């Protein structure tokens, strides 16, 4: 059997890579995808822990994360599209009117 730490380590790596993506990319869409990556790594952790505890709650949690992700995707993509329509750019660094 593959021990649970392996899954957890994978999850940690994926989360970190996702977070890194948010920090280094400027394309709002890619940033958003990186966030999806982070959430998926959480899902992996949930599932791994569910297996570890032999409790289904972790898997149920994944379901909820999924739902939330779906709603967020709607909101996020709508916002990105809206901004693109106004500014003709999806570079998040160009969205810097508000500062100070």
């Amino acid at each position, binding site marked *: 059997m593959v021990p649970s730490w392996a899954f957890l380590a994978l999850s940690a790596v994926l989360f970190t890579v996702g*977070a890194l993506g948010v920090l280094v990319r*400027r394309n709002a869409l890619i*940033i958003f995808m990186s966030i999806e990556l982070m959430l998926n790594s959480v899902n992996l952790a949930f599932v791994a822990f569910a297996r570890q505890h032999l409790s289904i709650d972790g898997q149920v949690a994944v379901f909820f994360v999924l739902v939330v992700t779906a709603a967020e995707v709607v909101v996020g993509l709508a916002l990105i599209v809206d901004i693109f329509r106004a500014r003709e750019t999806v570079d998040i660094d160009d969205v*810097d*009117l508000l*500062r*100070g």
Partner: protein
Amino acid sequence: MDAAALLLVWPLLGWLINGLLGRRLPAGAPGVLASVAIGASFVTALLLLGHYRALAPAGAARSVPVPLFTWFGAGDLAVDAGLLVDALSLVMALVVTGVGFLIHVYSIGYMAHDPHPARYFAYLNLFIFAMLLLVTAGNLLVLFVGWELVGVCSYLLIGFWFQRPAAASAGRKAFVVNRIGDAAFLLGLLLLFTSLGTLDILEVRGGVDQLGAGTATVAALLLFAGATGKSAQLPLHVWLPDAMEGPTPVSALIHAATMVTAGVFLVARLDRLFLAAPVALGVIALVGALTAFYAATVALRQHDLKRVLAYSTISQLGYMFVAMGVLAPAVGIFHLVTHAFFKALLFLAAGSVMHATHDVIDIRRLGGLARPLRWTTGGFVVGGLALAGVPPFAGFFSKDLILEAAFAQGMTTGNYVPYALGLLTAFVTAVYIARAAALTFFGRPAEPGGHPHEAPPVMLVPMGLLAALSVGGGALGAHALGEPLLHFLNGLLGIAGAEAAHPPAALLLAVSVAVALAGVATGWTLHRARRDPGLGPVGAVLEQRWYVDALYDRVIVVPGHMLGRWLAGPVDLDVIDGVVNGVGRAFGALGASVRRLQTGYARQYALAVLIGTVIILGLWVLR
């Protein structure tokens, strides 16, 4: 005796009426009203004297306290406002009200053309009130009230013509210099109170024995420091000559006859304390003698007639302190009385001169006034001779007694310095007053033209009365007449001790007379026919008052003001407030830098979240 308070009430009433209603009174009324008030006070004082003599048979020392009300108290401190009637206070009250009355009357004439007579007479009445409070106070703190109030009146009256910057400055200088002395006085009172638990004069006098020698000396010196301020002794004498900016009757009353003698009075009042402090007495005698000599020399080369008289006053006050210092307070008071007569006379005569010459007072610009101003000249000459100590004028008696006492003290202690300086000063005194008289009244007028006219009777009559007193006042202390004043004052200590030395009275008398006559002769000879030898470099030093005023200015006043500006500028604004504002600015700068972190870039915000996360989690891991 309870009526003693009336003494104070009259001038107070005069002050209130003139002060509050003065401007609505008819033109001549304020002067008359004020004079009447002081006259009433004088009569009250006379009645009191009679009453007192009936109470206290001749020769018996007696003090009658007149309690009025409790002024204030806190803890074990209780200050009762009350009066003290005894020989000393009666003599002083009589001098104050008597001379005061004459000068009030004189002022009616002198100030006839001034636009603000009500203010003038209100101040004058207030002064008399304060002076009476000072001399009759039964409590040292009440005495101090009078002491300060006379200072204020002096300030107000010197600066009476406040539109003249010199007058305003002189008034301020007088007040401030006096304050320095007063501060010492106050400390002395604090020391007395903390040591004795009381400030009641009788209790203090009775409790002197409980004081340690050191405490007594310090207290005595502090009080004497106060006296040097009020009585214009070295080193606090500088205000008095400037005070001549005030109206001349004021100079006569306040800056010659009465207020400036308050210091002498104070020493006499607390004679027991000073007696318990021999060191202080030595200091007093020395300071007095030095002041007498210093001021007399300066008077030699002053050209403003009133300044000559002012330095003369300082000098004569020095004599009085010498008397105090050599254990002859009664003699000192005697000189105080005679000096009040003849110096007031001299000032009033000087005032008469100003009245005649439209305020020209520089003796180099005067001369030959003897003819138009016969009566004034007569008065001045009488006063001058009294000042010079020529027999049989009043000053001769008192000054001679002082010198005798000083010599006697020298016999006991071996210290003849006060006597020697006193004798020397007597000579110089005769010289400068002869000079002043010669240059002012004799010879030909320095500036021909102008028609000086003699003063009106309202001014001449008081001068006449004072002249009479200057001639006959010596009788009060004349040996031949049994020294009635000294006898009356025998409640004061010290005389017995001085007489025990048995000085060669006749010899000293002869020397005194010889010195006085020699001085007059010298002065007259040198300055006859309007000559005024400059005395070379010494004269220049004297003309500059030994540079004392300049020294004070450069060493104290200017650096003091500079210190103030330095504290106000670099220290207060730059350092202390700089720190305060610096803190404010620092926060502003911090805020600005925090604000700069808010770049507007979402990615950077996300980085901030990550960094925060790492730090938070790191804190745990490292813990």
